[in-house]
Structure formats: C-alpha cells, structure tokens
C-alpha cells in the first residue's frame, strides 16, 4: 500500500479529520495490539478485472478515441473511492497484460527488456495495487514472456518454441502476483505464490468511539480457470497443470488464518456454475464460496457485472446467489466488467468480536461503479496515466500505421462473385502457408496431403456501394488487414475427402440463382445466400467450373487436381477458419469432426505475418490465380448483378472482360450499379 500515511504523527482527532481519501497504510504506523470487542472498521475492497491492457480510452485499429473504455478513467474512480472510504485495498483480478495492439507491441513486436516494466503494470504501480491475480490471458504469450514481465523465474521445462526463461528475475510489478492452482510438472509446485498475507494498518473506531489505527492482516489467494490447459495448450501441455480450486482453498485458507489473516480475499478469474463440483470445471466459484473462511470473492473472466439486479444470466440466478446485494452463499462478491469500464467496490463493515475481526454482512455493500455517468457522459481520465504510457502509446500507433508490405494492385471484393480473387488469394496463400508449416513441424502424418486454402468475401455489397472490401494499391498497414479479414476468426484446418471437397464447392455455389438460358428477360445472378459463405479456392493445382444453369447441388463441373479428376476417396487438407470448420454455414460434412488444426491465431494475424514475410504483393503472384470459372453458356437475356458504381476498371484489371455496365445507378439509392455478365465468354 501507499506509504503516504504518517498516522503516528497525528492525534486521534486529527486522524478522524484526515480519514477521508486514504488507502489502508502499511504496517508501521501506531499499532493497537489490544483492540477490544466492539471496535468497528469500514474497509472498501476495490476490484479491477479484465483490463486487457486498455490503458488509454483508445481503439488502436480505428486509431480513434473510445471514451467507453480505459484504465485512465478507472483511475479516476479509484481516487474517488479512496477519498470516500477510510480504508481501501485495491486488487486486480487478471487478464491484464493482453488484449490490445499496445499489448501485442510490447510482447511480440518490440518485446520489452528484462529491466523494463510493462506499460500496464507501470500505471498499476503508479496508482498502487495491493495484489493481483493471474487470468487465463496472462498465458497467451507463453510462459517465458509471463515470467519476464512478472519478475518470476518459473521452474519448468519450456516448450521448444518458447524463448528461454530469463536468467535473472526481471522487473515486474511492484505489487505481489498470486496464483494457487497452476503448478509445474517439473517440481509440482505452484508457479506463483499461492497466497500472500498482507500487513496493513487501518483506521478504526474503537469500542469507546475513538478514531484510532489498528493493524490488520489480509490473506489474498488467487485462481485461474483450469481450461487454460485447452486454451493455451501450445505453451502449457506437459509443462504445467492445474489443481482443484476448492481443494486448494480448503488447504490454504486455514494456513492464512494460522498466519494471522483477519480477512481473506479470494481473487478468482472465473464465474459461477452450480454443476456438481469438479477440479477441472471452468467456473468453480459457486463452490469456492462454500469454503469456510473466505470473506470476499473478486470474480472476472466472463466480462459481466455483478451484482446486477436486472441480470437474466443463468449464473447470477442460481440458488444461493443474491444478484441484488452481491452475495454468493452470503459471501460478498463482485465482478467489475472489463476493459476498464468499471471498478468493483465491496464496502465491508467489520466488527471486532471475540478477539477477531468479523465481517458484518448485514452492513456490507457491494456495487459496481461505471466510468459512464447517468447522463451518458464519461468521467474524466486521470491525466498522469496517459503521460506515463505516452511513449508506448505513440510507438503502438506508429506500429499500426507502419506499412508491413506493398501491393502493386488494388485488393477488392467488388467483383468477387464473378471471379475477381484480388481480395481472396492473399488470404488463401497466408492460410495455406501457415498450415503447411504447421503440418511439417507438428503433424507429419499429414505431410503427404495437399494443402489448399478456402476463403470467402466478407463484404459483398449487402448494405450498399460502400459495403465492399477495398484496399488500394500501395503500402499495406496493419489496420488494412482488418479490411481484408473483417471477422476475428481463428485459423482451422480440416482433413477432408474428395467427396467432401465437391460438396463444399456445391454448398458455396448456392450463392447463385439458377439461370434459365432461354429466358429473354433479365435474370439476377446472385441469390440470397450471404457472400461470406461463397468460399472459393485460388490454387493453380485445383480447377473447377460452376454451372449456374444447373440446380443447386449439381453445379460443380470438371473438378480436377493437378489435371486429374478429383475422386471421392481423395484426401486433402483445407486451411480455413473456425466458422467453416466447425459447421458454420451448414456445409455438408464440414461439421467440426474433421478438424486437425485449431489454431489460437486469428486468420487476420496469420495474414499480417504472411504479408510481413513476403513484403511485395504482386498481382502475378498474389492476385491472379483463379481455380474456378463459370461454365460457358449463351443466354437469351441479360444476366445481372449489383456492385458499387464506377468500378468497372477494377473488373477489367482483374481480367474479367465479360462484364459491362447495364445501369449506372440501379435506383436503390445505395450507390450501386447494375452490371451484366456475359456467361458465354
């Protein structure tokens, strides 16, 4: 805690006048060892959770202010709480060091040195935390990085992809980090301290009504979700393991009490689940609250607010859960939202009874304080936070704007439906490259299979002429990658048969209406199936035609690989995303059971890394390989589709010479033209 309170210099009267605005001071002020029963104290436990390195109120991909988030505004709330309560303690629940471009910058782009402190921890140091837990996302960058930024040296055998463990303890936060339930396979001991017992001095009112100071010991224990073993398997499998939250609490809470803890705070990065208790369950805190001796629970992970009287969420409507008062089996409990939107406050009323401090639940208040005011304005940020991280903030902005490559052609989806693959092929190449390398390193049993890539245009004009992917020729920056890959999908690969491949293409071809070549009237080509399900391959080894005159389900013609027809029993690996691999779009046979790679990396990040590696994107290599074309057919009437106005030159540049403008303005008021395609060419 902060050493600003020189309580010993003041009389009790002075103390009472000064009490507002103070955190609990460290032990060392005048301790009163013989506090009699009847003494009372008010202690506010403050929680932040799931900050995800949202230090500034800023969106790094939009490069714009976002006042609805940001630790810099939470600091204002913390200061207000410290001014309001005579005693405060401040804890963070975890998911702290990952989540923004700034976090990625300090972890991956320009990793901080051993003697540096993460920007997030630096501003937390500045405001002063008493302790913090470890969330699941703390493991996202690997154990070596986690050790470095937390000042630890884990006794583990790291995965071979990891950087070495720091040779010495690096600079970490100034407050203790606690985690009880992740242990090293190597020595079977917890990675972090499982708990700490903090010595503090707080302002109390003794039994006679005098304002005095008194020592207090606060035991702090923390847990993370056991599911980290699935979510960060690539770093953790065989290196660490988890143990049961309830069992560890039953072991450690008595230990903390034996060490004199007057108050026990459990920081648990998870929510509530009343299923029968199992040590592997993700949200064990409904059961944790039943462990004797826990006075306060600080929750997180699910990005929710608790207490919340209006909540319809099932976990907050379980038996034993008071969503109005913020109690779980009578234990005051808070979950303070995410990204620096709120601070949680557990205002404990404590009374000295039978020689020990006891929480008076009837007078305890639990609440969430939002950075958004009732009038929808936002509290002002604490200016020192921005000043403290200005260098890292500006470096991140510069990084996001820095060209990672250059393209000699425009990548767009204006004509993706009719064969322009300029915004697709680069995605497929990035995915295929990633999967090929992954198989070579990790899945040799699939090394002989061809790896293909499948991707669809996310934006195909549904909302009008501006609803298309459009990345101009020239430098490509990080934030352009979000234009090329709009959704935060993760990269998956599936092992499929030739029959699956044909079915996949048939499902994608449902994008088109069935064309009657004899009709003399205009026929629209595009049906109701959304463009994001129009997967296409862009690989010169694979060829196929789409016959739009045929009924859905029998449109794929002349499907061949390396010039040979694809047989039903052939085998392929297809690099795609989690959506398609897990059954998105309802593609037959692609149902989540054929996944061989479920990467935690987003397709967008894979694309960014690929562009960084190739640097120069050329049409010849990255924007001209079509695997498919329409089966040629002469039609009596015009076949039409909509796209943005004035884009015909892009179609011509993509080699689509059978496109023409039928109506410059289609009359929809959405900046769309009606284009015509000659299917006979």
């Amino acid at each position, binding site marked *: 805690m902060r050493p600003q309170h020189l309580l010993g210099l003041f009389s009790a009267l002075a103390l009472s006048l000064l009490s507002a605005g103070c955190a609990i001071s460290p032990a060392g002020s005048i301790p009163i060892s013989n506090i009699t029963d009847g003494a009372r104290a008010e202690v506010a436990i403050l929680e932040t959770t799931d900050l995800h390195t949202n230090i500034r109120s800023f969106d790094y991909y939009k490069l714009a202010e976002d006042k609805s988030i940001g630790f810099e505004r939470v600091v204002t709330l913390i200061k207000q709480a410290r001014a309001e309560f005579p005693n405060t303690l401040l804890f963070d629940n975890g998911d702290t060091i990952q989540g923004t471009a700034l976090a990625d910058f300090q972890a991956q782009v320009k990793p901080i040195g051993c003697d540096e402190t993460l920007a997030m921890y630096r501003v937390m140091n500045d405001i002063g935390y008493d302790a913090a837990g470890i969330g699941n996302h703390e493991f996202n960058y690997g154990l070596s990085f986690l050790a470095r930024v937390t000042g630890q040296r884990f006794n583990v055998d790291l995965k071979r992809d990891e950087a070495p463990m720091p040779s010495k303890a690096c600079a970490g936060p100034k407050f203790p980090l606690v985690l009880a339930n992740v242990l090293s396979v190597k020595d079977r001991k917890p990675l972090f301290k499982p708990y700490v017992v903090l010595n503090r001095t707080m302002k109390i009112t003794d039994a006679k009504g005098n304002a005095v100071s008194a020592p207090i010991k606060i035991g702090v224990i923390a847990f993370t979700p056991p599911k980290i*073993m699935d979510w960060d398997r690539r770093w953790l499998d065989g290196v660490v*393991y988890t143990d049961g939250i309830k069992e560890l609490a039953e072991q450690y809470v008595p230990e903390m009490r034996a060490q004199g803890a007057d108050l026990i705070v459990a920081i648990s990065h998870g929510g509530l689940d009343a*299923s029968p*208790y199992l040590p592997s369950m993700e949200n064990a805190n409904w059961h944790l609250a039943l462990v004797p001796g826990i006075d306060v629970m600080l929750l997180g992970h699910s*990005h929710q607010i608790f207490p919340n009287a209006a909540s319809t969420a099932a976990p907050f409507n379980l038996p034993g859960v008071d969503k109005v008062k913020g109690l779980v089996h009578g234990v005051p409990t808070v979950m303070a939202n995410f990204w620096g939107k709120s601070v949680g406050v557990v205002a404990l009323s404590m009374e000295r009874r039978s020689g020990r401090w006891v929480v008076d639940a009837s007078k305890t208040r639990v609440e969430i304080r939002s950075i958004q005011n009732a009038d929808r304005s936002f509290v002002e940020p604490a200016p020192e936070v921005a000043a403290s991280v200005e260098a890292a903030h500006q470096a991140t902005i510069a990084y996001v704007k820095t060209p990672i490559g250059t393209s000699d052609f425009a990548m767009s989806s204006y004509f993706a439906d009719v064969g322009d693959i300029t915004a697709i092929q680069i995605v497929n190449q990035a995915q295929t490259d990633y999967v090929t390398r992954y198989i070579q390193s990790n899945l040799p049993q699939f090394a002989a299979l061809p790896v293909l890539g499948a991707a669809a245009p996310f934006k195909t004009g549904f*909302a009008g002429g501006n609803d298309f992917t459009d990345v101009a020729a020239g430098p490509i920056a990080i934030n352009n990658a979000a234009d090329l890959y709009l959704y935060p999908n993760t990269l998956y690969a599936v092992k499929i048969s030739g029959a699956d491949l044909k079915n996949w293409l048939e499902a994608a071809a449902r994008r088109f209406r069935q064309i009657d070549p004899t009709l003399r009237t205009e026929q629209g080509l595009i049906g109701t199936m*959304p463009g994001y399900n129009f997967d296409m391959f862009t690989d010169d080894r694979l060829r196929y035609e789409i016959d739009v005159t045929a009924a859905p*389900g029998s449109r794929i013609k002349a499907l061949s690989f390396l010039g040979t027809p694809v047989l039903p029993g052939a085998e392929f690996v297809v690099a795609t995303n*989690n959506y398609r691999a897990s059954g998105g779009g309802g593609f037959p046979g692609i149902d*989540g059971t054929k996944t061989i790679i479920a990467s935690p990396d987003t397709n967008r990040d894979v694309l960014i890394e690929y562009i960084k590696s190739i640097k120069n994107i050329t049409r010849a290599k990255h924007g001209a390989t079509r695997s498919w074309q329409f089966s040629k057919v002469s039609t009596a009437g015009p076949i039409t589709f909509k796209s943005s106005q004035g884009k015909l030159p892009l179609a011509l540049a993509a080699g689509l010479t059978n496109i023409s403008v039928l109506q410059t303005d289609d009359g929809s008021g959405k900046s769309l033209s009606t284009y015509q395609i000659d299917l006979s060419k």
Partner: protein
Amino acid sequence: MSRAVTLLPVLLSLLTLSVPATRAVAAAPEPDAPVATNRAAQIDRWRVHADAGRDEQALQSLLIYARQGDSRAARAAGSVLSRRTERTVALDGLRWLERAAVAGDVEAAVELGRVFLFGRPAIEVDLPKAKAWFERANPTANGIAAYYLGVIAMRRSDDASAVKTALTHFEIAANLGVSDAMYRLGNVYALGVGAEPNPQLAMRWYLRAAASEHPLAIQEIAQAYARGDTLLPQSDFQSSVMREAMSHALRHAKSLP
C-alpha cells in the same frame, strides 16, 4: 455504451416466447456435498494430474479404484490412456472405457463415441463404432450423445429420413442445454435443410446459442446485423459489437460438448 459481451443480455431479451423452454440452469447440488460427489471430484483431480500433470502416481490411483470396480475411475483412466501415442497403451485405455460403459457408466459410452468419432493419436476414426456407443449412452437424456448422433446423421444430408433423425437429435440436445445443437438448429431453419426455411426461428436459435457464448452463433448475429435481419435491423455498430463479443468467445472456446 459500446462493446461486446454486455450486449448479450439485451439479445437475450429478444428470446421471447417462441423458443421451446429448456433447462436453463444446471441443477444445484446440496451445499453439503455427498460422499459420491467428493469421490467424483477426487477422481477428476487424479485425472487432471495424470493427464496434463504427467503424474504416474495419480494414474495408478485411478487404476486401483478402477480395478476395484469404480466405473468413474475406469472412465478417467481410460480417457487418459486412450490419448497416449503408444497403441498398446491406447488400446488398454479403450478397454477401461469399455469396462466402465458396459457397467453402465453413460459418460464412458459418450467418451468412447468421441474417441471413435474424432480418433486419437493411436486410434483411428470408426464412424459405426462411434454411432453405436452414442446410441448406448441414453441419447434421449444425454445431450452430448444426442448431439453427436445428430451430427453423424446429418452426414447424409441428401437422405430426408436421416436429416429428420438429425433434427430430432438436435432438438433433444438443444433442450438439454447443448449450445452446439442450438446452433445446428439455427442452421437447419436458416438454410431450410430438413425443415422449411424460417429465418426468425433460425435467429432465435442462434440467439440462444449465443447466450452460451457460442462463437459461431455470435458470428451469425454479427453477420445478421451487418446485412439486416427480420429480428435484427441493420447496424454496423451492433455488428462491430458482436464481432468483439465473438473475439472474446473464441478466446475462451468451449470444448465440443
């Protein structure tokens, strides 16, 4: 107010009347956990230690209980061993799973179904065996078994009776709280495969699955907002919010049920 998961409760409010009622909340055990629950927790703890923790002593503890006839221990030991790369060890794991399943342990039958549906490093995919084990797992009361039987049936999506069977399984699973099944039902009504297309009902199933943080369902909602839907009017802002919710859900991907 912007951003992600906070919107899910709002979306839930759209789930008005037309979705069948389901079990929303797991039954809560008595606060005084019975001995059986403690035993289950102990066995799960050993399983985690034996699997992720590479703790042979924990594995031996499971095997001791398994040999004494404890089906849960046999299932846990079988689950650990069946994932091993040595074929003889993996087959030993299969035998423990089979012993538990034959003794009536439904979860062991489900695990066997999963082993044969997905395969393991030393065990190949065997669809008929997977189907047989899921069918033994009381699929009218076990949502996971029902869900996977639906997935297997849907493999024959050109066969109307198979699709009908799949639909029945998905409905059972969804009503038992399996969010993947809710999502599949959304697809059924969105695409009109096995049922008449019904975009509103599809979206309601997606919303229900999204309330359980099902990432694909959240993506469907994001996409619906992007294009405009009968239930969700076009909104780039809401689509962006849902993309963020999806990103969060993907980072905490639930294991397949």
